[in-house]
């Protein structure tokens, strides 16, 4: 199967010297004789322009309630020695190898697919919010419409059909690369081998499957914010009633 996206992905990867075998869109269901994939994502922050196309594509693909997102791209202004610098950091579920959200679930609603994507059985979930508390990446939320825990699934409905996740498919800068971490010839692994990558919040020992190229050290762990949008909203008169 070849799509415009896979063609473009292939063209870009080919320019970067990636093997041709790594260029095809992932086939989630392993063919007979093939090993089960281990999905992962690489986000090249040098290419992300913070356009939020991934945010919108995800919301549309997964029919999310207004204002709730499985992925989004926070924008920061960093105070660097050379002056203010803008940084973007696309965030989504990290589909950790050791996800803290999974063991806390009291009804076994959170589980891993064969390919390692962490997903929620919305019919089983009681909406207790314990997994939302446990996730160190703030990647989960209680869906307003279903009353159950919601999160990125790596678009399991698409990857099982051999398609890319919606955020990857739509990324105009080709900043998001999705593929099989077990396959050393995948574009993902080739890029990871060629660049220094980082994961978010390594101090939690969760071993995320989302890797970043070009991640600023100040954004890797808990971000120390010194103001900005949140502070402006906190001081807004209409909502300034935090007193107890």
């Amino acid at each position, binding site marked *: 199967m070849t799509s415009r996206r896979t063609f473009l992905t292939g063209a870009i990867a080919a320019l970067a010297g990636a093997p041709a075998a790594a260029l095809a869109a992932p086939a989630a269901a392993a063919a007979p004789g093939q090993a089960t994939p281990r999905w992962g994502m690489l986000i090249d922050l040098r290419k992300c322009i913070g356009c939020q196309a991934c945010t919108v594509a995800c919301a549309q693909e997964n029919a999310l309630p207004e204002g709730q997102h499985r992925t989004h791209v926070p924008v920061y202004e960093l105070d660097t020695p050379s002056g203010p610098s803008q940084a973007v950091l696309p965030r989504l579920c990290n589909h950790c190898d050791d996800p803290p959200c999974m063991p806390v679930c009291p009804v076994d609603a959170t589980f891993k697919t064969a390919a390692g994507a962490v997903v929620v059985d919305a019919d089983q979930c009681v909406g207790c919010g314990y997994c939302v508390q446990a996730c160190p990446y703030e990647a989960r939320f209680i869906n307003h419409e279903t009353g159950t825990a919601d999160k990125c699934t790596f678009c399991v409905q698409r990857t099982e059909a051999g398609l890319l996740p919606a955020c990857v498919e739509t990324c105009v800068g080709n900043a998001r690369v999705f593929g099989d971490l077990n396959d050393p010839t995948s574009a993902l692994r080739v890029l990871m081998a060629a660049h220094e990558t980082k994961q978010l*919040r390594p101090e939690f020992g969760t071993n995320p499957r989302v890797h970043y190229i070009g991640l600023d050290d100040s954004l890797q762990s808990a971000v120390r914010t010194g103001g900005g949008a949140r502070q402006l909203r906190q001081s807004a008169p209409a909502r300034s009633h935090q007193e*107890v």
Partner: protein
Amino acid sequence: MTAIDILSIDHDMPWRPWAVFYFLLIGASVGAALLAVYARWTKSGEGRGALMAATALAVAAPLPLLADLHQPARFLHFYLSFATDSVMWWGSWLLPLYIGSVVALAVVSALRLRTRLETLLYAAVGLFGIGILGYTAGEMTIVAARPLWHTVAFPVVLTLTALTAGAGATLLFDAVRGEKGLGCRVVAAGSALGLVVMGLWMLTDPAMATLALEHEPLALLGGLLGLGLAVPAALALVAGRSRTGRALAGLAAVFGAFLFRWELFTGAQLMSKTESAFFGHASLTAADTLRAAAGSAGVLVLAILAVIILFTVLAPRGGRQTHA
């Protein structure tokens, strides 16, 4: 290096004010129940008020818990799963066992059936009550993503304030019944100890210091340390036989336990873990909070009425006195 967030999204607190009331009611219930068990163990004969308080609070506790679930009608899923890795799953079994044993003990005690069953029920109440204290503190303390909960001090103060709230509720019941009871000593000791631990926590933990000094100085320093811990300890020490003094000490102890839960539950949840989301505000006068307060208070009043009817109307006249 600091960052300024230019674009972030809004999130809601997953645990709403209902959770604060659940943890208050069930903690206070266990605190009162353990007081009743102690009274029975020492044969002091002053444990009836504690048992009444424990029963009313235990009967009321499940409502706010269910209301905090976003899919409350699915609560049976807890019992159809086998999620032994989850502290909350263990709690879902401990809760009915504890409530069932407290209610059974109340019935047996009210009907003055001093039998071996009563002794067994006291043991069960003590055992399951300690289990409840363990699960409520444990399920929050293990959440490494919440720095305010993932500390040594948090479960200690949560447990201490559960005990003082239970003793405080007992003091209120005993004040109405005109009895002295055992609550004052627990309120004095528990509140004083809680004050010391809270002080050390604020001095040694940067996350707690930030909450106390930057976000909620009035509520934590004035409200919790002052009104919620120092005042009940002082009142309990000086109250003597004064019914009003003891009732005020009890009320202040319950207030302290509530404020600790309110501040630590909402304060922790409002702190973004990744600084990529805005969690809004929590207010005692917000509609969500008032709804939870009204619902919890309503079911508690009904539970108190039921307990009073059980112990005063249904109890046989002139029967044998129990130790409780």
